[in-house]
């Protein structure tokens, strides 16, 4: 009851306030908020410039030292990296440790070989992985994702089991960083989470994974065949892209099978993939699939692939298509015929 009395009292008080008084109060409120916002703006500007100056100072402090570490010879590399006192003192502060961590990660992602190994060794020596792991254990998704990214860049294989559990995380950023980290640390073997993955892989993430695997030839053909059978169409699409990228013609028959997949993205990728592993059976499969393909876009894709990889043996098939009523298709057919005839 006292609550009800309070509200009734408030209501009676409010009724006594005139419209003009209400406006005065609002004006005072708006003015205070504006002044507050301006103060916040000035404060943020000052804080940002102070932080930038601090960052710049730290970067210049670290610069020579990091250059000397990067340039260490192999025989010296197993030794403990010595640290100037100025840096040692600076690193007692969390901000400086964070700044160094970011600098190391930035440099490591651009350097490989001995220079990269030295940076990684310094990261281990300073136990900066604890900072990255701390972030990975955070409940905030952006810190979690950042921590995973740092651990992967610094090749911290000891964290693999933890990272693996995050590959199926409901947050898309955390999940993709964990998946990328798995491939970064283990190559193809890191993709074992595919079997449990129900979430789709975005096109962007597929490009990330493909880039990481670009210099690693497919060693386990059965694994790729398994992926082509998975119910998640984005994984099938990814596997087809991988086959294209590596021109892995041993999967030709599997790719042809994918032409009859229910999902359009898979069929589209299979068509593109057959263009990357051209052969007479591939061209035959594309020709056979053309008439059963329901999507006009994919039909155009087939014509584009035939133009790219076809031979004169495609001409009779293409001549038949000249009669199609669709102008766009007819134009594409003519273009393909012209191209193939010119090749002759």
């Amino acid at each position, binding site marked *: 009851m006292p609550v009800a009395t309070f509200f009734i009292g408030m209501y009676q008080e409010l009724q006594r306030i005139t*419209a*003009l008084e209400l*406006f*005065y109060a*609002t*004006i005072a409120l*708006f*003015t205070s*908020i*504006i002044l507050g*916002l*301006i103060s*916040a*703006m*000035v404060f*943020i*500007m000052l804080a*940002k*410039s102070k932080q930038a100056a601090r960052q710049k100072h730290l970067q210049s402090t670290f610069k020579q030292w990091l250059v000397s570490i990067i340039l260490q010879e192999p025989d010296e590399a197993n030794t403990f990296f010595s640290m100037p006192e100025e840096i040692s003192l600076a690193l007692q502060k969390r901000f400086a440790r964070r700044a160094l961590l970011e600098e190391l990660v930035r440099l490591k*992602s651009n350097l490989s070989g001995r220079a990269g190994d030295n940076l990684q060794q310094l990261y281990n020596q300073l136990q900066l992985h604890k900072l990255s792991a701390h972030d990975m254990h955070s409940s905030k*998704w*952006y810190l979690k*994702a*950042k921590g995973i*990214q740092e651990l992967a860049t610094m090749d911290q294989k000891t964290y693999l089991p933890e990272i693996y559990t995050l590959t199926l995380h409901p947050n898309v*950023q955390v999940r993709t*960083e964990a998946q990328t980290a798995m491939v970064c640390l283990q190559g193809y073997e890191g993709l074992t989470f595919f079997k449990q993955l129900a979430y*789709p*892989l*975005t*096109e*962007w993430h*597929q*490009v*990330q994974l*493909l*880039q990481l695997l670009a210099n690693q030839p497919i060693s386990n053909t059965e694994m790729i065949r398994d992926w082509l059978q998975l119910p998640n169409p*984005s994984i099938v699409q990814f596997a087809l*892209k991988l086959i294209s*990228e590596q021109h892995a013609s041993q999967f030709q028959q599997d790719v042809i099978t994918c032409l009859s997949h229910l999902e359009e993205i898979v069929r589209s990728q299979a068509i593109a993939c057959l263009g990357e592993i051209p052969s007479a059976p591939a061209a035959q499969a594309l020709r056979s699939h053309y008439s059963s393909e329901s999507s006009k*876009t994919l039909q155009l894709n087939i014509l584009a692939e035939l133009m790219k990889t076809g031979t004169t043996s495609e001409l009779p098939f293409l001549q038949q298509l000249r009669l199609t009523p669709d*102008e*766009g298709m007819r*134009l594409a057919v003519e*273009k393909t015929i012209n191209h193939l005839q010119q090749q002759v």
Partner: protein
Amino acid sequence: MALIYNLFHYGMLWYAVSMLGCYIFLSSLAIIEAVRYLRRSRLTNYNLLASSPYAPSVSILAPAYNEGANIIENVRSLLSIYYNNLELIVINDGSKDDSMAKLIEAYHLAPAQLEYHQQLATKRVKAVYKSTNPVYNKLLVIDKENGGKADALNSGINLAKNQYLVCIDVDCILEQDALLKLVKPFMDETGKKVIATGGVVRIANSCVFKNGKLMDVNLPKDYLPRAQALEYIRAFLLGRMAWSNLNGLLLISGAFGAFDREVAIAAGGYNHNTVGEDMELVVRMRRYMADRKIPYKVAFIPDPLCWTEAPATYQILGRQRNRWMRGTIETLNMHRKLFMNPKYGVLGLMSYPYWLFYELLAPVIEFTGFILFLILAFAGLINWSFFLVLTAFILLFGWLFSTFAILMEVVTFNQYKKRGDLGKLILTALAEPFLFHPFIVWSSIKGIVDLLRKKNAWGEMTRQGFNTAPQTPKV
């Protein structure tokens, strides 16, 4: 009489309160979206896409009309964009100057037999040119009869082969990674089809450029461009970010936006019968998707990607705002079926009503209010103390909104960080209701009058040209 007065009185009050409520709601959504974007963006390596064979293919469409003075530099700037899977289609829309001759000479163009599929009706295309110099192999030039911007863009779409279209004003300067950032949203969605993306357009006046690249960001020195810089911060960082959060964007700036080519063609391309072709296309593409019940999204990214010169005189600014108002009315009229139509979800129930009430009707209501104020003042019917308090309330809310937008800019991208810039922006905001805003309202009213009188000219836009950094002397 009393009833009419009360209806008017309370109607205006309701309108003002609902508008303020909308602004507060949209600002909150904008903060959420901007923070989410910035956190995601910090984790992203955009360079990944620059050289990947799996980067989506993009056709840049740049219509040009009488741009002879700067066309060579502008095309060079577009050719230097950091993206591999790209073609640049410049459309000479029947220029009366020497644009075409300059292009032919500078880029070694020769007529080419290319696949030009007339999927969208356009004025006659005289020829399609391709460079004989392999350095410019990404460049294609269409020479056509004059038909306006929409017509030029449609002829570009007819020639384009790539998956996504990026429509750009030829005189805009892009950030080096602009395309990488603009294309990413198309690759980030799995459940919905992204049909269009847009990025923040910033004011280039007083900024320094060298070889088509932005060298130094400056707050415009003149008042008018500076007021527009503030207006753009408000519109892009608050308005569009908020609508992006709701998936309710109706407008992707004609100066720089990307579209799914297939959907753009299926929806019918740019409409020749409106001067607001950029907004109209987005609305039509959205309707196309909604009618077919295909889940879709129009994305927006808050990164400053494109720099454009803002009108620096009242005359040119007036023409621009007149045209924008006509474009808005035409688009909303063409798509009036959307109004409060639950079938179109956010588009019909939120975006369309917002644009109708707070973008289209706002200048009408403001203008009517001002006229009424004059009449009542002359008749001695004004309660001056109440009037002053109400005016202070409205002015303060406007300043509050602008200050909040500046704060958002400081917290997020902080482009204007030179000494005194912040103060100048705040002073610009303070002067805006007296110097800038009344003129915008007046130009919009003129736009409505012009539309009623069936004047549908584009309105000539004269540019002053960008500041260029002094060239380093050759040794």
